[in-house]
């Protein structure tokens, strides 16, 4: 977090996860990649376009009473590779983690190729070919995409 003032924008959470340093406007996409939607029961708050000393403006997400698994966290790399994840226990940050780009995105986002078999059966598997800037290649149809193309052309696996 960038300053005390920033922290005040949403109340501190007792237990849960704070995802910080999300590029501005990408907060909603982070929620959807994490599968946080209608059927999700924990309390979630999001700040959009809050000033950041390092990023200009940024988004922040706080999820209460729910731990995120490593695998879930790394999915965020597709949208916010520079995000940090803070694990909170009894109002204290107990662990701080940077996102690490996984070797592959399995069952996270569909292959944008409508003729790809992974959209008909099996599971989408996009292997990471380059981490920065992020480029992936479908393990099935072999088409390669930048993360921007992928997000523009495809949809997350629900």
């Amino acid at each position, binding site marked *: 977090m960038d300053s005390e003032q920033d922290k005040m924008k949403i109340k501190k959470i007792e237990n849960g996860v704070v995802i910080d340093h999300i590029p501005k406007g990408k907060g909603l996409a982070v929620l959807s990649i994490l599968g946080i939607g209608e059927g999700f029961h924990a309390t979630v708050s999001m700040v959009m376009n809050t000033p950041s000393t390092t990023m200009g403006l940024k988004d922040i997400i706080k999820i209460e009473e729910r731990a995120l698994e490593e695998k879930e966290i790394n999915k965020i790399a597709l949208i916010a590779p520079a995000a940090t994840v803070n694990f909170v226990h009894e109002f204290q940050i107990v662990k701080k983690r940077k996102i690490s780009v996984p070797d592959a995105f399995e069952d996270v986002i569909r292959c944008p190729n409508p003729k790809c078999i992974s959209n008909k059966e099996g599971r989408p598997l996009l292997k990471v070919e380059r981490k920065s800037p992020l480029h992936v290649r479908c*393990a*099935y*149809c072999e088409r390669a995409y930048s993360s921007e193309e992928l997000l523009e052309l495809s949809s997350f696996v629900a």
Partner: protein
Amino acid sequence: MADYWAGRDILSTRDVPREAIEQIWHKAKKYDDAVTHKKSYDKHSGKVLASLFFEPSTRTQFSFQTAMQRLGGSIIAFSDADTTSVSKGETVYDTIRMVESCADVIVIRHSLEGAARLAADAASIPVINGGDGANQHPTQALLDTYTMFQKKGKLDGLTISMIGDLKNGRTIHSLCYALANFDCTIEMWSPPQLKLPQIILNDISEKVKVVELESLDLSNSDVVYATRIQKERFDDPEEAERYSYVIDAESVRKMKDDAIIMHPFPRVDEIATEVDSLPQAAYFAQEANGIPVRMAILDSVLG
């Protein structure tokens, strides 16, 4: 290098090393007499090839089936997915799980891209991609490069001109990745809407010299690789007309004397029949090479 292909799947030419391609050529050379003298071997008697053509292709299917039989093996096959349980919605995965208990090796053709990779995930026996959508047709690339090797002695130093529809042809895509292993120059000519996909161009440009031809000038070519331009690819029939081309005896005269002309077939009218009897015409030899090359492939994966 030990036999690269033993027990492996053949799904794509991307990431296949040069030595692996050359191994297939050298093995194929020993099987040339399967065509020239109709010779059969009993090297793989008792072995079964499952030939699964979800999308029909007489040429590729005959070639694989002949290759397996010339090696002494036998075949189980379907060539029309409509007559099988596949049309009732059975997945490729379940079809493969059923077939793998019957066979030692599988060849699959499917209209969806990545189908062969999915089949390989499902099967514990080697899977050979006989064409998946617009993605890959690796055994065609192996027989194409074998033909160049056979006719020109080597691929290094050659200028290979690919002309026609470079966008939709899986044959072209597989061949591009295979050629990227060699020290050759690839010339390309196609209508603007049928250019090689940018993804593939990026991949191969790192390894091989690619030149886009402004006009259909084949005077530098050692190998002319012609492909069909389907009229259905154009919205406007006049535009289709504008980009149609024919290689005839006159165009052959403007080529190098020792240039060769190849085509993955079927041809419509890209190459005039008057060219068939000229020494540059290599496409029938190329087509026949499907048999020794696929014998080499089956022999290698069966180990």
